């Protein structure tokens, strides 16, 4: 397919990044810059009884909640998360105040000589503590959000079942580990607040700043700086940092920069929610699952943040890619005195896919069936209904994809050979099948109603005006490619600057894998209209706003209908070798096929797939993050281990075309999809190698030793 939209283009942001010219937040150094550092709580729950400050020299400042001009709460779903701690602190690392000044060393010295006195309160340090609700920190039951829905008649199915199989599955914290730590710069001049920094969602930050300051819309400007990776980690947390530099800039009248050190970033920013999932399935005499019950509990940490929507995505993924006629899905996010959990690529779905895929493996093994065959007979088909009663309208190509993966990996043959392997090194192969609902969950897109604009700049030039950001995922290249194709201009002639909220309309946040399918589609239709009207005038702008397709119906109260407008699909097979002396596990190969509709750029999609799979393998194996007394025990990349080039397996990756009517050039979503399957496929492979069930990630050697020896 030469010269199709999928043919790779050189990334437009490549050279400036490779040569070190790209300007990230910490590279911005305005005149008169002050540096800020944060005084943080050192315990999970306490009342602050006294703060003793040293003498503060000239030009140095203390900034705290008393300096907040408007409301000391981050604008989010619950508005419960303060920018600066109030009288009570609710998690280790909660910001209490800032020390701001021209010399970083001196700022640090001042910070170190501040003394805080606390009166400890009983902390909630686990999901079980939270459920017991002895001393609640949120409402009277510590529950940020709880949902449930059903399909069919699960009660009858369970009562007629031949067998009922139950399992519990756990996933741990997962750190985004973007290579550029979070950072922001604020300035305040002539009544106007400007915040520049590393972020995914300029308008989230803008709305948060308006509530923080009480300023009018035109007195707040947010600019994205080149962003060194985000993976969801820069969805909500940047609003907090932006608030800090904003208040400091307003107080001092000087530009103020706050960049987290790596250890600080690991300690205080949001991570993927740990989860505990209980599954129960009813099996009939033919070995078919006639009903499934899923109950997922997430640890939300101290503030509600985005937890409720993360939970929704987890629940809508809870039944995986299987057509089960009778379903009950329940879930809740609990408040604990942990650092707030938040957005991370997949947004709840990776936890659910791990649980449902391992549960399917477990059922097959308990029934004495081949796990893959067992999964295969339950796969959804076009026209089936989802667990929320939505309709899978579009063509589903998983059977074709499965055949491809099996061939690429030589799966069936390896399955047989590996099972009979003896000796110290055991091999295993496992496979996971997954999907991703494209764009916001439920009515999200309708509420946001994103607008995208294209402006003609000259006879042969145009500019994209949107609030979506390039954060490494390739938006600069893919979106310009879409517009260039339609306007029939060279891609270099399509400008697309890092968004500045003074210049761009709100096309929504850069989340939920919505940038290409939703915003790209708006750009596609704006470009088509602009192309038609190109000769009308020298300077012409065309804007398009999101219109919800009428056939997609969703009831947010009952959680019924189409949770997403479209789905992308993936299958991944992972081969491992386990050393039964040390229980160290090495990944020997990965084979994967994805349906992302039409790839806007095959190379960029390959980059998303490979990066997502390795991040998912890390989640399943090396990346252990846990807490002691409410603090993470891992403080750096020395003890929070992410995969290196020597850990990374070769990944054989293929795409299958399946154009989507409402996506630009037929594209669907891709960014989050590939992370969902890596962990269950890895765990299934280890389980195959050792002949044991796996119910928990990360799969630590200690756990394997215990299970295998049993």
């Amino acid at each position, binding site marked *: 397919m030469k010269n199709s939209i999928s043919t790779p283009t050189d*990334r437009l942001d490549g050279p400036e990044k*490779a040569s070190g010219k790209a300007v990230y937040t*910490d590279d911005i150094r305005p005149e008169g810059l002050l540096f800020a550092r944060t005084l943080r709580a050192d315990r999970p729950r306490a009342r602050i009884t006294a703060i003793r400050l040293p003498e503060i020299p000239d030009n140095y400042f203390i900034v705290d909640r008393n300096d907040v001009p408007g409301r000391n709460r981050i604008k989010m779903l619950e508005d419960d998360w303060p920018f600066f701690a109030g009288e009570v602190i609710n998690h280790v690392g909660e910001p209490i105040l800032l020390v701001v000044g021209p010399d970083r060393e001196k700022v640090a010295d001042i910070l170190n000589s501040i003394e805080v006195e606390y009166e400890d309160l009983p902390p909630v340090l686990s999901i079980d503590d939270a459920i017991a609700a002895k001393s609640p920190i949120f409402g009277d039951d510590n529950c940020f959000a709880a949902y449930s829905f059903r399909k069919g008649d699960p009660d009858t199915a369970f009562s007629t079942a031949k067998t009922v199989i139950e399992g519990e599955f756990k996933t741990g914290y997962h750190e985004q580990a973007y290579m550029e730590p979070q950072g922001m710069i604020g300035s305040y001049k002539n009544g106007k607040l400007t915040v520049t920094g590393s972020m995914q969602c300029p308008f989230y930050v803008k709305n948060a700043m308006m509530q923080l300051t009480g300023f009018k819309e035109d007195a707040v400007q947010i600019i994205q700086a080149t962003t060194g990776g985000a993976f969801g980690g820069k969805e909500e947390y940047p609003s907090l940092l932006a608030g800090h530099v904003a208040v400091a800039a307003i107080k001092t009248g000087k530009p103020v920069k706050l960049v987290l050190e790596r250890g600080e970033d690991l300690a205080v920013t949001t991570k993927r929610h740990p989860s505990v999932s209980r599954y129960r399935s009813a099996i009939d005499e033919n070995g078919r699952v006639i009903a499934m019950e899923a109950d997922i509990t997430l640890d939300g940490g101290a503030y509600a943040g985005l937890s409720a929507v993360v939970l929704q995505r987890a629940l809508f993924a809870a039944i995986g890619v299987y057509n089960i006629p009778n379903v009950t899905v329940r879930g809740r996010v609990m408040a604990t005195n942990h650092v707030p959990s938040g957005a991370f690529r997949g947004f709840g779905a990776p936890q659910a896919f791990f649980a449902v895929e391992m549960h399917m493996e477990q059922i097959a093994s308990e029934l004495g069936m081949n796990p893959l065959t067992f999964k295969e007979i339950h796969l959804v088909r076009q026209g089936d209904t989802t667990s929320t009663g939505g309709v899978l309208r579009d063509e589903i190509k998983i059977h074709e994809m499965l055949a491809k993966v099996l061939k690429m990996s030589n799966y069936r043959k390896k399955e047989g050979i590996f099972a009979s392997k003896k000796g110290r090194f055991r091999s295993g192969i496992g496979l996971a099948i997954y999907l991703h609902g494209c764009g916001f969950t439920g009515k999200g897109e309708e509420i946001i109603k994103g607008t995208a604009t294209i402006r003609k700049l000259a006879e042969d030039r145009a500019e994209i005006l949107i609030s979506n950001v390039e954060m490494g995922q390739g938006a600069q290249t893919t979106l310009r490619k879409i517009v260039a194709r339609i306007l029939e201009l060279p891609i270099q002639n399509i400008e697309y600057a890092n968004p500045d909220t003074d210049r761009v309309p709100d096309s929504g946040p850069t989340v939920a894998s919505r940038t290409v399918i939703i915003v790209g589609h708006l750009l596609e239709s704006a470009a088509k209209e602009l192309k038609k009207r190109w000769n009308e005038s020298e300077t012409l702008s065309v804007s398009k706003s999101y219109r919800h397709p009428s056939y997609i119906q969703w009831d947010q109260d009952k959680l019924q209908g189409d949770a997403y407008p479209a789905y992308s699909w993936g299958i991944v097979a992972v081969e491992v070798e386990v050393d039964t002396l040390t229980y160290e596990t090495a990944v020997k190969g990965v084979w994967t096929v994805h349906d992302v509709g039409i790839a806007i750029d095959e190379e960029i999609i390959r980059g998303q797939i490979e990066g997502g799979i390795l991040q998912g393998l890390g989640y399943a194996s090396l990346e252990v993050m846990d807490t002691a007394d409410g603090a993470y025990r891992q403080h750096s990349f020395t003890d929070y281990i992410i995969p290196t080039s*020597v850990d990374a397996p070769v990944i054989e990756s293929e795409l299958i075309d399946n154009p989507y009517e409402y996506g630009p050039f037929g594209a669907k979503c891709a960014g989050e999809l590939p992370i969902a399957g890596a962990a269950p496929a890895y765990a299934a492979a280890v389980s195959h190698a050792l002949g044991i069930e796996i119910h928990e990630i990360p799969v630590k050697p200690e756990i394997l030793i215990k299970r295998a020896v049993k």
Partner: protein
Amino acid sequence: MSQIIQFTLNGTPVSLESDPMRRLLDVLRDDFSETGVKEGCGEGECGACSVFLNGKLVNSCLVALGSIEGMNVETIVHFKNTPAYRVIEQAFSDAGAVQCGFCTPGMVLAAYALLKNNPHPGENDIREAISGNLCRCTGYNMIVDGIRLAAKRGEGKW
């Protein structure tokens, strides 16, 4: 405690009076605006702060200013003007090795450090050579491909 320290930065002799305990990384970024040298971890784990010190690849966050008296420091700012850089940049581009770019200047220098000593590296040599440089975006294989491509095209340029 400050001390006068002289060294060569990107071919130009420089001298500054400063605390010898300061990290070379901060000196480069703050005193010489060499912002292509990145701080990813500050602990020698990520390689984003890589520079050449007397031709050897080091993590500048682990180097004290006082220890480089009389030495040669070369950063991405200088290296980007060499023919070797252009080969690597194009190969990275063709292989899709750049995503967020935060690791990339360090990866480019690590690639050069390898190719200079071993112009025909095998896959494992490449993986070893960049194993001190973390990348969270790419999954590494496309960077490995980029280096392999650079090796193929760069004959005689190292």
